[in-house]
């Protein structure tokens, strides 16, 4: 890694330093992944690829009756069980996804109705490739700070598309992560202490309207895209009056494969023990808008009060949101009120490539 970015870091964002967000906390969280898995080896078998060097070992596949909306609802229901609030107090539902079931009609209203939160004040879908879910969190946190809503629900959910035979097919997975945010109080799970964002016009990955599969610029998606933006967002949390990495107990970076997040960890000299608890891509794949947030769910499933978590998303196009959270006492009471992500990871059904095509709606039926 001898490039400018890895030597000196990216240029600073025009938005200034990080924003301290104290006063807003996660009151409930939930992760959901479908039960079906396909091994990378099985995909490789179809396309004559070598048995080694796959970006992940296996990935989740949505059932034939699942989409981003159904998975968002499942994650939201888990979050609600932990939040233990009347769903009618949730004033805003934002769903980040690049696989929303309708081009026009919000997923947020479907989720709100399904969890008993309807009518809400606000409900909308966000799109920013894999970072739309974290952007939803940033917006909901602002709505709570301003007093416009008492509680808000931020979700990242995707049934990610990968063109058959394309490199993305090995990783493009399905899942959802949901967070109910509210004011910090004695019941809160983790306070969002700080946030920073970093976004530029970088065409590393895109999908035109009506197209079934995304396009990507292959290796271009690495250094000028993923690494520059994640490092840019995280760097501003560490500068000036920011944090030192010694104060952080867990680190989660967006994980489109196993290699990229470990490379960022190496750049920041973060030890493996801080990265491993949130690194789930090898068993789940890249769940796009849910990806880094499911890493956060897995960390919350095991973190202790007083510990700090740094989570940085990445969305192609391109941008990154980085948050620092401090775990609070509420985690001890609420964590076991709903299934942990590890339970969904263990509870799997392996499928072959032909079943995969059926579940992914790749078989033409007339």
């Amino acid at each position, binding site marked *: 890694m001898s490039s400018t970015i890895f030597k000196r870091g990216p240029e600073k964002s025009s938005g200034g330093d990080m924003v301290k967000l104290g006063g807003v906390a996660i009151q409930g969280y939930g992760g959901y992944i*479908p*039960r079906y898995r396909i091994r990378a080896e099985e995909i490789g078998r179809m396309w004559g690829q070598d048995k080694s060097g796959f970006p992940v070992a296996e990935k989740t596949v949505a*059932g*034939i*009756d*699942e*989409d981003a*909306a*159904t998975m968002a*609802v*499942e994650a939201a*229901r888990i979050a609600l069980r932990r939040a233990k609030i009347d769903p009618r107090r949730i004033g805003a539902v934002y769903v980040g996804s690049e696989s929303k*079931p*309708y081009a026009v009609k919000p997923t947020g209203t*479907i989720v709100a*109705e*399904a*969890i*008993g939160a309807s009518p809400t004040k606000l409900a909308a879908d966000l799109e920013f490739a894999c970072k739309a879910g974290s952007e939803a969190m940033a917006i909901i946190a602002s709505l709570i700070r301003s007093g416009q809503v008492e509680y808000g629900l931020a979700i990242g959910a995707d049934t990610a598309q990968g063109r058959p035979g394309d490199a993305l097919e090995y990783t493009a997975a399905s899942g959802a992560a949901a967070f109910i945010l509210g004011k910090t109080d004695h019941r809160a799970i983790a306070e969002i202490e700080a946030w920073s964002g970093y976004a530029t016009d970088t065409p590393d990955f895109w999908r035109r309207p009506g197209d079934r599969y995304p396009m990507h610029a292959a290796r271009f998606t690495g250094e000028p895209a993923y690494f520059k933006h994640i490092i840019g967002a995280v760097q501003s949390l560490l500068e000036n009056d920011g944090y030192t990495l010694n104060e952080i107990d867990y680190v989660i970076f967006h994980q489109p494969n196993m290699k990229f997040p470990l490379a960022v960890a190496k750049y920041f000299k973060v030890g493996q023990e801080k990265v491993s608890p949130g690194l789930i891509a090898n068993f789940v794949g890249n769940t796009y808008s849910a990806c880094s947030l499911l890493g956060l769910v897995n960390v919350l499933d095991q973190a202790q009060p007083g510990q700090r978590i740094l989570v940085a998303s990445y969305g192609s196009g391109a941008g990154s949101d980085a948050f620092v959270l401090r775990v609070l006492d509420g985690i001890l009471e609420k964590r076991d009120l709903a*299934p942990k992500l590890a*339970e*969904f990871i*263990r*509870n799997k*059904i392996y499928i072959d490539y032909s079943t995969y095509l*059926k579940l992914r*709606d790749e*078989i033409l*039926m007339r």
Partner: protein
Amino acid sequence: MRVTGYWRNISFLYRLAGWKCTHCGAFHHYKPVICRRCRSREFTQVELPGSGRLIAYTVIRSPPKEFERYAPYSIGLIELEDGTKILSQLTDFKEDELRDGIRVEAVFRKVRVNGEQGIIEYGYKFRPVLSRS
């Protein structure tokens, strides 16, 4: 496309929520003007429990045209925790997991997709309770 019929039922389809006659206890999927059983006009909103026991099931291998892409699929008769019996599609199971008497729980799924342009109908289905071992 049956948009209005689907929309009137979404509280029940999404959350198993409906209206119970305060006089005779009859359950209605959406708030009626009068009870179809006892003609009462008083109702209480209730949400049925989201878990129960599979009483019996069958496998559909020759489905109606609109469900062809889901075949084969299973339909189960379920007794919910409050004793209510309900028919539902079953989902997310391995073949050897389906047995009469197993614990099942409601999940939110696509039930029917009306072609390329029509509405997507969501609703409840039941799956075997997630193992917490």
